[in-house]
């Protein structure tokens, strides 16, 4: 099962801002299911990595306290045409990835 990601990036003056929207429930494992009295099982994205032209740039770790359908924005030194790749996985092992070329 792959996780859906929408990503955009634009470079101005050598600095690119990359924005990504990820479709994911981000269940923290704390929220209670009132019908059963037990918490909903944890299901959240825990690692996100971004590479620029194949070189590591951002290595991020998340907890279940990141909002559902997470938004993330980062800045990298990159120019138009550079390849940005985002790879992520959640605590059940489901993964998602997206590659874009900077505008």
């Amino acid at each position, binding site marked *: 099962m792959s996780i859906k990601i929408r990503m955009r990036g634009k470079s101005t003056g050598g600095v690119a801002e990359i924005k990504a929207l990820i479709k994911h429930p981000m269940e923290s494992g704390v929220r209670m299911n009132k019908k059963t009295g037990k918490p909903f099982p944890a299901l959240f994205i*825990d690692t996100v990595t971004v590479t620029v032209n194949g*070189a590591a*740039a951002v290595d991020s770790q998340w907890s*279940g306290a990141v909002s559902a359908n997470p938004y993330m924005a980062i800045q990298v030194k990159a120019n138009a045409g550079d390849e940005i790749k985002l790879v992520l996985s959640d605590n059940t092992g489901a993964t998602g990835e997206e590659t874009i070329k900077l505008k």
Partner: protein
Amino acid sequence: MKRRSFLKGTLATGAAAVAVNAGLLTPSTVLAAWNKEAFTAKSTDAALTSVYGSAAAAASGDIQLKAPAIAENGAVTPVTVDATGMTGVESIAILASKNPVPLVATYAFSGAAMGYASTRIKMGETMNVIAVVKAGGKLFKAEQEVKVTIGGCGG
């Protein structure tokens, strides 16, 4: 099938933890493994100690922490940490002081990355958002109180 991948996962993280303890891996190569200790720590100090080895961070005006003064919906609180004005930024951690698990996210930077991270976080009640920046081997922090009118945990 799920059970199998769960077992595999726990074995793998266990092995990674052993390797760290034995000093086989340097911190930079371990970054890919999810820091379970930090993300289960119940206090901001314990979480910071687990991530950075120390909880002593100096307040810095160079960190621009953007968060709303009043969050209408605690489940989606936009937080932006801009440390691009600092030199040698290695990583950023975002914490919410009163959450059951305070550590929300960590970002480690290398190569082309700049010291900037923006995300949206869940907050259960009114509390401080803390941004900790590691730059040039030292820890700096910025704090801001966010008033939450509707909780983020199913109210």
